[in-house]
Protein backbone atom coordinates (compact mmCIF):
# COMPACT_ATOMS: atom_id res chain seq x y z
CA UNK A 1 0.00 0.00 0.00
CA UNK A 2 1.54 3.29 -1.02
CA UNK A 3 1.24 6.16 1.36
CA UNK A 4 -0.05 9.55 0.53
CA UNK A 5 3.25 11.37 0.39
CA UNK A 6 1.73 14.63 -0.74
CA UNK A 7 0.56 15.32 2.83
CA UNK A 8 2.53 15.80 5.98
CA UNK A 9 6.05 14.84 4.84
CA UNK A 10 8.48 13.58 7.46
CA UNK A 11 11.51 12.98 5.27
CA UNK A 12 12.49 14.47 1.95
CA UNK A 13 15.75 13.26 0.42
CA UNK A 14 16.81 14.85 -2.86
CA UNK A 15 19.63 13.72 -5.19
CA UNK A 16 21.66 12.26 -2.37
CA UNK A 17 25.23 11.30 -3.12
CA UNK A 18 27.42 9.62 -0.50
CA UNK A 19 31.05 8.75 -1.08
CA UNK A 20 34.07 7.49 0.85
CA UNK A 21 37.76 8.00 0.40
CA UNK A 22 38.80 4.70 -1.21
CA UNK A 23 42.17 4.50 0.59
CA UNK A 24 40.40 3.31 3.71
CA UNK A 25 38.88 0.38 1.87
CA UNK A 26 41.91 -0.81 -0.02
CA UNK A 27 44.75 -0.65 2.41
CA UNK A 28 45.59 -1.19 6.00
CA UNK A 29 46.32 2.21 7.46
CA UNK A 30 49.23 2.66 9.72
CA UNK A 31 51.77 5.43 10.09
CA UNK A 32 54.31 2.96 8.69
CA UNK A 33 52.30 2.56 5.47
CA UNK A 34 52.00 6.32 5.11
CA UNK A 35 55.73 6.76 5.76
CA UNK A 36 56.69 4.10 3.18
CA UNK A 37 54.31 5.63 0.64
CA UNK A 38 55.75 9.12 1.12
CA UNK A 39 59.36 7.88 0.85
CA UNK A 40 58.66 5.68 -2.19
CA UNK A 41 56.82 8.23 -4.24
CA UNK A 42 56.60 11.62 -2.52
CA UNK A 43 55.30 13.56 -5.52
CA UNK A 44 52.62 11.04 -6.35
CA UNK A 45 51.51 10.87 -2.70
CA UNK A 46 51.24 14.63 -2.40
CA UNK A 47 49.60 15.43 -5.71
CA UNK A 48 47.63 12.26 -6.44
CA UNK A 49 43.96 12.94 -6.89
CA UNK A 50 41.93 11.07 -4.31
CA UNK A 51 39.87 8.14 -5.55
CA UNK A 52 36.39 7.80 -4.13
CA UNK A 53 33.98 4.95 -3.64
CA UNK A 54 30.46 6.05 -4.50
CA UNK A 55 28.12 4.26 -2.11
CA UNK A 56 24.87 6.08 -2.94
CA UNK A 57 24.23 7.96 -6.17
CA UNK A 58 21.39 10.37 -6.84
CA UNK A 59 19.00 8.84 -4.34
CA UNK A 60 15.69 10.62 -3.84
CA UNK A 61 13.10 9.52 -1.31
CA UNK A 62 10.06 10.94 0.41
CA UNK A 63 8.29 9.65 3.48
CA UNK A 64 5.18 10.88 5.19
CA UNK A 65 3.37 10.04 8.42
CA UNK A 66 2.22 6.45 8.57
CA UNK A 67 4.89 5.18 6.19
CA UNK A 68 6.54 1.98 7.30
CA UNK A 69 9.33 1.69 4.78
CA UNK A 70 11.24 -1.57 4.39
CA UNK A 71 14.70 -1.31 2.83
CA UNK A 72 16.03 -4.35 1.01
CA UNK A 73 19.36 -4.86 -0.73
CA UNK A 74 22.27 -7.27 -0.89
CA UNK A 75 25.23 -6.89 1.50
CA UNK A 76 27.21 -3.76 0.71
CA UNK A 77 24.41 -2.21 -1.33
CA UNK A 78 24.44 0.90 0.88
CA UNK A 79 21.34 0.39 3.06
CA UNK A 80 23.06 1.19 6.33
CA UNK A 81 25.06 4.03 4.76
CA UNK A 82 21.85 5.64 3.50
CA UNK A 83 20.22 5.30 6.92
CA UNK A 84 23.31 6.63 8.75
CA UNK A 85 23.32 9.63 6.46
CA UNK A 86 19.63 10.31 7.12
CA UNK A 87 20.30 9.91 10.85
CA UNK A 88 22.96 12.63 10.60
CA UNK A 89 25.97 10.42 11.28
CA UNK A 90 27.47 10.66 7.77
CA UNK A 91 27.84 13.71 5.58
CA UNK A 92 26.53 13.60 2.01
CA UNK A 93 28.85 14.76 -0.77
CA UNK A 94 25.86 16.43 -2.41
CA UNK A 95 22.08 16.47 -2.21
CA UNK A 96 19.77 17.43 0.63
CA UNK A 97 18.07 15.67 3.53
CA UNK A 98 15.17 17.38 5.22
CA UNK A 99 13.65 15.80 8.32
CA UNK A 100 10.47 17.37 9.67
CA UNK A 101 10.51 16.36 13.31
CA UNK A 102 12.45 14.24 15.72
CA UNK A 103 14.53 11.39 14.34
CA UNK A 104 15.78 8.35 16.25
CA UNK A 105 18.00 5.65 14.85
CA UNK A 106 19.40 2.30 16.00
CA UNK A 107 21.94 0.26 14.07
CA UNK A 108 22.77 -2.33 16.69
CA UNK A 109 20.53 -3.21 19.62
CA UNK A 110 23.14 -5.37 21.34
CA UNK A 111 25.22 -2.50 22.66
CA UNK A 112 25.28 -1.14 26.18
CA UNK A 113 26.74 2.27 26.92
CA UNK A 114 28.98 0.85 29.61
CA UNK A 115 28.89 -2.96 29.82
CA UNK A 116 30.24 -2.93 33.38
CA UNK A 117 27.20 -1.07 34.67
CA UNK A 118 23.90 -2.83 35.41
CA UNK A 119 21.05 -3.15 32.95
CA UNK A 120 19.09 -0.50 34.86
CA UNK A 121 22.01 1.97 34.76
CA UNK A 122 22.55 1.30 31.07
CA UNK A 123 18.83 1.76 30.43
CA UNK A 124 19.02 5.12 32.17
CA UNK A 125 22.01 6.18 30.06
CA UNK A 126 20.41 4.90 26.84
CA UNK A 127 17.27 6.88 27.65
CA UNK A 128 19.36 10.05 28.13
CA UNK A 129 21.01 9.52 24.74
CA UNK A 130 17.80 8.60 22.90
CA UNK A 131 15.58 11.22 24.51
CA UNK A 132 17.92 14.16 25.07
CA UNK A 133 15.10 16.69 25.29
CA UNK A 134 13.22 14.96 28.12
CA UNK A 135 13.59 16.08 31.71
CA UNK A 136 14.85 13.78 34.47
CA UNK A 137 11.37 12.88 35.69
CA UNK A 138 10.30 11.86 32.19
CA UNK A 139 13.51 9.84 31.72
CA UNK A 140 12.78 8.04 34.97
CA UNK A 141 9.29 7.08 33.81
CA UNK A 142 10.60 5.95 30.37
CA UNK A 143 13.17 3.71 32.06
CA UNK A 144 10.60 2.29 34.47
CA UNK A 145 8.19 1.49 31.65
CA UNK A 146 10.93 0.01 29.45
CA UNK A 147 12.31 -2.21 32.20
CA UNK A 148 8.83 -3.57 32.89
CA UNK A 149 8.27 -4.18 29.19
CA UNK A 150 11.63 -5.95 28.77
CA UNK A 151 10.59 -8.60 31.34
CA UNK A 152 14.18 -8.96 32.49
CA UNK A 153 13.07 -9.23 36.13
CA UNK A 154 15.89 -9.41 38.64
CA UNK A 155 18.50 -9.30 35.86
CA UNK A 156 18.02 -5.54 35.50
CA UNK A 157 20.34 -5.07 38.47
CA UNK A 158 23.12 -7.32 37.18
CA UNK A 159 25.96 -6.07 34.92
CA UNK A 160 25.02 -5.61 31.26
CA UNK A 161 28.09 -7.59 30.16
CA UNK A 162 26.64 -10.75 31.70
CA UNK A 163 23.51 -10.53 29.50
CA UNK A 164 22.88 -12.89 26.60
CA UNK A 165 22.35 -11.34 23.16
CA UNK A 166 18.62 -11.75 23.51
CA UNK A 167 18.57 -9.97 26.87
CA UNK A 168 20.69 -7.12 25.52
CA UNK A 169 18.31 -6.74 22.58
CA UNK A 170 15.30 -6.74 24.93
CA UNK A 171 16.71 -3.94 27.04
CA UNK A 172 17.77 -1.68 24.16
CA UNK A 173 14.65 -2.25 22.05
CA UNK A 174 12.41 -1.58 25.05
CA UNK A 175 14.07 1.79 25.60
CA UNK A 176 14.10 2.75 21.92
CA UNK A 177 10.40 2.03 21.49
CA UNK A 178 9.34 3.61 24.79
CA UNK A 179 8.33 6.91 23.29
CA UNK A 180 6.94 8.00 19.97
CA UNK A 181 9.06 9.95 17.52
CA UNK A 182 8.58 11.32 14.04
CA UNK A 183 11.04 9.10 12.20
CA UNK A 184 12.46 5.88 13.58
CA UNK A 185 15.29 4.05 11.78
CA UNK A 186 15.81 0.40 12.73
CA UNK A 187 18.70 -1.35 11.00
CA UNK A 188 18.54 -5.15 11.44
CA UNK A 189 17.91 -4.65 15.12
CA UNK A 190 15.47 -7.52 15.68
CA UNK A 191 18.07 -10.18 14.92
CA UNK A 192 19.26 -10.66 18.51
CA UNK A 193 15.84 -10.96 20.13
CA UNK A 194 13.99 -14.26 20.48
CA UNK A 195 10.86 -14.99 18.47
CA UNK A 196 8.47 -14.22 21.32
CA UNK A 197 10.05 -10.84 22.03
CA UNK A 198 10.32 -10.01 18.30
CA UNK A 199 6.54 -10.34 18.07
CA UNK A 200 6.04 -8.32 21.23
CA UNK A 201 8.43 -5.53 20.20
CA UNK A 202 7.00 -5.44 16.66
CA UNK A 203 3.56 -4.82 18.15
CA UNK A 204 4.94 -2.05 20.35
CA UNK A 205 6.77 -0.40 17.43
CA UNK A 206 3.67 -0.67 15.26
CA UNK A 207 1.62 0.93 18.02
CA UNK A 208 4.19 3.68 18.29
CA UNK A 209 4.05 4.30 14.54
CA UNK A 210 0.27 4.31 14.69
CA UNK A 211 0.44 7.10 17.28
CA UNK A 212 2.67 9.22 15.10
CA UNK A 213 5.62 9.24 12.76
CA UNK A 214 7.14 6.89 10.25
CA UNK A 215 9.71 4.13 10.34
CA UNK A 216 12.51 2.79 8.16
CA UNK A 217 13.29 -0.91 8.59
CA UNK A 218 16.46 -2.40 7.16
CA UNK A 219 16.33 -6.16 6.99
CA UNK A 220 17.47 -9.11 4.94
CA UNK A 221 14.34 -10.95 5.92
CA UNK A 222 11.38 -10.45 3.56
CA UNK A 223 9.19 -11.95 6.31
CA UNK A 224 10.06 -9.14 8.71
CA UNK A 225 9.45 -6.57 5.98
CA UNK A 226 6.05 -8.15 5.27
CA UNK A 227 5.16 -8.07 8.96
CA UNK A 228 6.18 -4.51 9.71
CA UNK A 229 6.05 -2.47 6.51
CA UNK A 230 3.54 -0.99 4.10
CA UNK A 231 6.08 0.21 1.54
CA UNK A 232 9.37 -1.14 0.22
CA UNK A 233 12.54 0.24 -1.31
CA UNK A 234 15.24 -1.89 -2.97
CA UNK A 235 18.77 -0.55 -3.22
CA UNK A 236 20.81 -1.88 -6.10
CA UNK A 237 23.98 -0.62 -7.81
CA UNK A 238 24.26 2.35 -5.41
CA UNK A 239 20.78 3.65 -6.30
CA UNK A 240 17.17 3.23 -5.27
CA UNK A 241 16.14 0.73 -7.93
CA UNK A 242 12.60 0.12 -6.69
CA UNK A 243 10.09 2.05 -4.60
CA UNK A 244 6.60 0.63 -4.23
CA UNK A 245 4.49 -1.98 -2.51
CA UNK A 246 5.99 -4.60 -0.20
CA UNK A 247 5.13 -7.65 -2.34
CA UNK A 248 6.43 -6.06 -5.55
CA UNK A 249 9.56 -4.97 -3.72
CA UNK A 250 10.25 -8.47 -2.42
CA UNK A 251 9.73 -9.90 -5.96
CA UNK A 252 12.11 -7.28 -7.38
CA UNK A 253 14.70 -8.10 -4.69
CA UNK A 254 14.53 -11.84 -5.43
CA UNK A 255 14.87 -11.32 -9.18
CA UNK A 256 17.84 -8.95 -8.68
Amino acid sequence: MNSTIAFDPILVVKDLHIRFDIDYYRQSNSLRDVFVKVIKSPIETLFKKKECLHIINNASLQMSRGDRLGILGVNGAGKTTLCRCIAGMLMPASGTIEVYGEIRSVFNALVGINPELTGRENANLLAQFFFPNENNKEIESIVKDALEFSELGGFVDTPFMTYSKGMQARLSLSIISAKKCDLLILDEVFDGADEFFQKKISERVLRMIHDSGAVMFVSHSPEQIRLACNRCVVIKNSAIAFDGSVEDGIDFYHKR
Partner: protein
Amino acid sequence: MFWRQVKSLTLANMKARYRKTFAGLVWVVMNPIIMYSVQSFVFRKFLKLEIDNYSLFLLGGLLPWIFIVSTLDMCTPVLRNSGELLKAFKVNPLVIVLSQLLDNLFNFLLAFFILLVPFIIFSMKDFVGMLFLPVAFLQMVVGVCGMAWLLALLNVFYRDTKFVVQFFTSVFFFLTPIFYPVEFVPDKYRWAVEINPLYSMIAPFRCCLYNFELHKFLFWLAKGSLFSFIFIYLSYFYWSRKRNEFYHCL
Protein backbone atom coordinates in the same frame (compact mmCIF):
# COMPACT_ATOMS: atom_id res chain seq x y z
CA MET B 1 21.56 18.39 25.81
CA PHE B 2 25.20 17.87 24.82
CA TRP B 3 26.47 18.71 28.30
CA ARG B 4 23.84 16.57 29.96
CA GLN B 5 25.07 13.58 27.97
CA VAL B 6 28.68 14.45 28.86
CA LYS B 7 27.75 14.67 32.54
CA SER B 8 25.85 11.36 32.55
CA LEU B 9 28.62 9.52 30.75
CA THR B 10 31.31 11.00 33.02
CA LEU B 11 29.43 9.85 36.12
CA ALA B 12 28.83 6.42 34.54
CA ASN B 13 32.54 6.05 33.73
CA MET B 14 33.50 6.96 37.27
CA LYS B 15 30.94 4.59 38.73
CA ALA B 16 32.08 1.70 36.50
CA ARG B 17 35.76 2.38 37.10
CA TYR B 18 35.61 2.30 40.87
CA ARG B 19 32.81 -0.20 41.39
CA LYS B 20 34.83 -3.34 41.94
CA THR B 21 37.91 -1.76 43.44
CA PHE B 22 38.83 -1.76 47.10
CA ALA B 23 39.69 1.96 47.15
CA GLY B 24 39.51 3.01 43.48
CA LEU B 25 39.32 6.77 43.79
CA VAL B 26 41.97 6.80 46.52
CA TRP B 27 44.48 4.99 44.26
CA VAL B 28 43.84 7.36 41.40
CA VAL B 29 44.13 10.50 43.53
CA MET B 30 47.12 9.21 45.50
CA ASN B 31 49.10 8.46 42.34
CA PRO B 32 49.88 12.11 41.42
CA ILE B 33 50.33 13.02 45.09
CA ILE B 34 52.94 10.29 45.58
CA MET B 35 54.66 11.08 42.27
CA TYR B 36 54.85 14.72 43.30
CA SER B 37 56.12 13.97 46.81
CA VAL B 38 58.85 11.61 45.59
CA GLN B 39 60.06 13.95 42.85
CA SER B 40 60.01 16.94 45.15
CA PHE B 41 62.05 15.04 47.74
CA VAL B 42 64.59 13.66 45.25
CA PHE B 43 65.18 16.94 43.43
CA ARG B 44 65.48 18.96 46.62
CA LYS B 45 67.52 16.57 48.74
CA PHE B 46 69.51 14.46 46.26
CA LEU B 47 70.03 16.73 43.27
CA LYS B 48 69.99 19.83 45.48
CA LEU B 49 68.41 22.09 42.88
CA GLU B 50 68.83 25.64 44.09
CA ILE B 51 65.37 26.95 43.40
CA ASP B 52 63.49 29.04 45.90
CA ASN B 53 60.40 27.24 47.29
CA TYR B 54 60.98 24.30 44.94
CA SER B 55 57.97 22.33 46.22
CA LEU B 56 55.56 25.04 45.09
CA PHE B 57 57.46 25.45 41.83
CA LEU B 58 57.13 21.72 41.13
CA LEU B 59 53.44 21.70 42.07
CA GLY B 60 52.68 24.27 39.37
CA GLY B 61 54.39 22.17 36.71
CA LEU B 62 54.18 18.52 37.62
CA LEU B 63 50.49 18.28 38.52
CA PRO B 64 49.27 19.86 35.24
CA TRP B 65 51.79 17.67 33.40
CA ILE B 66 50.38 14.52 35.00
CA PHE B 67 46.86 15.70 34.14
CA ILE B 68 47.77 16.36 30.49
CA VAL B 69 49.67 13.12 29.99
CA SER B 70 47.13 10.89 31.71
CA THR B 71 44.26 12.56 29.82
CA LEU B 72 45.98 12.05 26.46
CA ASP B 73 46.79 8.47 27.45
CA MET B 74 43.17 7.76 28.39
CA CYS B 75 41.55 9.66 25.53
CA THR B 76 43.69 8.48 22.60
CA PRO B 77 42.23 4.94 22.42
CA VAL B 78 38.74 5.86 23.66
CA LEU B 79 36.97 6.31 20.30
CA ARG B 80 38.42 3.12 18.86
CA ASN B 81 37.38 1.24 22.00
CA SER B 82 33.87 2.70 21.75
CA GLY B 83 33.46 1.70 18.11
CA GLU B 84 30.45 -0.55 18.73
CA LEU B 85 28.63 2.17 20.64
CA LEU B 86 29.43 4.90 18.11
CA LYS B 87 28.14 2.77 15.25
CA ALA B 88 25.05 1.59 17.13
CA PHE B 89 23.31 4.97 17.23
CA LYS B 90 24.00 8.65 16.83
CA VAL B 91 26.33 9.72 19.60
CA ASN B 92 28.58 12.72 19.23
CA PRO B 93 32.11 11.25 19.58
CA LEU B 94 33.15 14.40 21.39
CA VAL B 95 30.81 13.40 24.24
CA ILE B 96 32.91 10.26 24.77
CA VAL B 97 36.23 12.12 24.65
CA LEU B 98 34.99 14.86 26.98
CA SER B 99 33.59 12.38 29.49
CA GLN B 100 37.05 10.79 29.78
CA LEU B 101 38.64 14.20 30.13
CA LEU B 102 36.23 15.30 32.87
CA ASP B 103 36.66 12.02 34.72
CA ASN B 104 40.40 12.69 34.78
CA LEU B 105 39.92 16.36 35.57
CA PHE B 106 38.02 15.51 38.73
CA ASN B 107 40.94 13.33 39.93
CA PHE B 108 43.41 16.08 39.06
CA LEU B 109 41.45 18.77 40.90
CA LEU B 110 41.16 16.62 43.99
CA ALA B 111 44.89 15.82 44.05
CA PHE B 112 45.84 19.41 43.23
CA PHE B 113 43.80 20.99 46.02
CA ILE B 114 44.93 18.40 48.56
CA LEU B 115 48.50 19.45 47.77
CA LEU B 116 47.77 23.18 47.46
CA VAL B 117 46.00 23.70 50.79
CA PRO B 118 49.16 23.29 52.97
CA PHE B 119 50.97 25.85 50.79
CA ILE B 120 48.12 28.34 51.14
CA ILE B 121 48.14 27.92 54.92
CA PHE B 122 51.87 27.80 55.62
CA SER B 123 54.08 29.24 52.91
CA MET B 124 52.26 31.19 50.20
CA LYS B 125 52.72 34.95 50.51
CA ASP B 126 51.39 36.36 47.27
CA PHE B 127 47.79 35.47 46.51
CA VAL B 128 47.25 37.78 43.51
CA GLY B 129 48.22 35.04 41.06
CA MET B 130 45.59 32.74 42.57
CA LEU B 131 42.89 35.07 41.24
CA PHE B 132 44.01 34.25 37.70
CA LEU B 133 44.20 30.50 38.31
CA PRO B 134 40.72 29.72 36.88
CA VAL B 135 41.62 31.46 33.58
CA ALA B 136 44.92 29.57 33.30
CA PHE B 137 43.12 26.41 34.20
CA LEU B 138 40.40 26.92 31.57
CA GLN B 139 42.98 27.61 28.87
CA MET B 140 44.78 24.39 29.75
CA VAL B 141 41.61 22.27 29.75
CA VAL B 142 40.52 23.66 26.36
CA GLY B 143 43.97 22.94 24.90
CA VAL B 144 44.03 19.40 26.29
CA CYS B 145 40.52 18.86 24.94
CA GLY B 146 41.69 19.87 21.44
CA MET B 147 44.73 17.60 21.64
CA ALA B 148 42.77 14.67 23.05
CA TRP B 149 40.04 15.00 20.42
CA LEU B 150 42.61 15.13 17.61
CA LEU B 151 44.63 12.16 18.90
CA ALA B 152 41.50 10.08 19.52
CA LEU B 153 40.43 10.71 15.90
CA LEU B 154 43.91 9.96 14.54
CA ASN B 155 44.00 6.73 16.51
CA VAL B 156 40.91 5.52 14.64
CA PHE B 157 42.78 5.86 11.34
CA TYR B 158 46.33 5.14 12.47
CA ARG B 159 46.59 2.60 15.22
CA ASP B 160 50.16 3.55 15.97
CA THR B 161 48.99 6.85 17.44
CA LYS B 162 48.70 5.58 21.00
CA PHE B 163 52.27 4.22 20.91
CA VAL B 164 53.56 7.48 19.44
CA VAL B 165 51.77 9.43 22.20
CA GLN B 166 53.29 7.24 24.92
CA PHE B 167 56.75 7.65 23.39
CA PHE B 168 56.52 11.41 22.97
CA THR B 169 55.10 12.10 26.42
CA SER B 170 57.97 10.11 28.00
CA VAL B 171 60.55 12.04 25.98
CA PHE B 172 58.89 15.42 26.48
CA PHE B 173 58.87 15.01 30.23
CA PHE B 174 62.60 15.72 30.12
CA LEU B 175 62.48 18.26 27.30
CA THR B 176 59.75 20.39 28.88
CA PRO B 177 60.70 22.63 31.81
CA ILE B 178 58.55 20.81 34.35
CA PHE B 179 60.95 19.98 37.16
CA TYR B 180 63.50 22.61 36.20
CA PRO B 181 62.96 26.31 35.40
CA VAL B 182 62.96 27.55 31.81
CA GLU B 183 66.01 29.69 32.70
CA PHE B 184 68.06 26.48 32.98
CA VAL B 185 67.64 25.89 29.25
CA PRO B 186 70.65 27.31 27.33
CA ASP B 187 69.80 30.14 24.95
CA LYS B 188 70.63 28.13 21.85
CA TYR B 189 67.96 25.54 22.76
CA ARG B 190 65.37 28.03 24.02
CA TRP B 191 63.49 27.99 20.70
CA ALA B 192 62.51 24.39 21.40
CA VAL B 193 60.73 25.49 24.56
CA GLU B 194 59.11 28.38 22.73
CA ILE B 195 57.41 26.03 20.26
CA ASN B 196 56.52 23.37 22.83
CA PRO B 197 52.71 23.50 23.10
CA LEU B 198 52.64 21.52 26.33
CA TYR B 199 54.86 24.06 28.07
CA SER B 200 52.79 26.94 26.71
CA MET B 201 49.69 25.40 28.28
CA ILE B 202 51.36 24.71 31.63
CA ALA B 203 53.32 27.99 31.96
CA PRO B 204 50.33 30.29 32.79
CA PHE B 205 49.24 27.79 35.43
CA ARG B 206 52.67 27.76 37.05
CA CYS B 207 52.89 31.53 36.75
CA CYS B 208 49.77 31.89 38.93
CA LEU B 209 51.28 29.80 41.72
CA TYR B 210 54.93 30.76 41.56
CA ASN B 211 56.43 34.28 41.19
CA PHE B 212 53.36 35.84 39.61
CA GLU B 213 54.01 38.69 37.21
CA LEU B 214 51.07 39.97 35.21
CA HIS B 215 52.89 40.68 31.93
CA LYS B 216 54.53 37.24 31.99
CA PHE B 217 51.22 35.59 32.77
CA LEU B 218 49.42 37.38 29.94
CA PHE B 219 52.19 36.49 27.49
CA TRP B 220 52.01 32.78 28.33
CA LEU B 221 48.23 32.84 28.46
CA ALA B 222 48.06 34.32 24.95
CA LYS B 223 50.51 31.74 23.69
CA GLY B 224 48.78 28.85 25.43
CA SER B 225 45.41 30.04 24.07
CA LEU B 226 46.85 30.22 20.56
CA PHE B 227 48.01 26.61 20.79
CA SER B 228 44.63 25.60 22.26
CA PHE B 229 42.85 27.30 19.37
CA ILE B 230 45.14 25.56 16.84
CA PHE B 231 44.41 22.13 18.33
CA ILE B 232 40.66 22.74 18.51
CA TYR B 233 40.64 23.99 14.93
CA LEU B 234 42.78 21.08 13.65
CA SER B 235 40.59 18.49 15.35
CA TYR B 236 37.40 20.10 14.06
CA PHE B 237 38.86 20.35 10.55
CA TYR B 238 40.01 16.71 10.61
CA TRP B 239 36.64 15.54 11.92
CA SER B 240 34.67 17.38 9.26
CA ARG B 241 36.97 16.08 6.50
CA LYS B 242 37.07 12.44 7.65
CA ARG B 243 33.65 11.98 9.20
CA ASN B 244 32.41 9.32 6.76
CA GLU B 245 35.67 7.38 6.83
CA PHE B 246 35.69 7.59 10.62
CA TYR B 247 32.59 5.39 10.89
CA HIS B 248 34.00 2.98 8.35
CA CYS B 249 37.33 2.58 10.15
CA LEU B 250 35.86 2.11 13.63
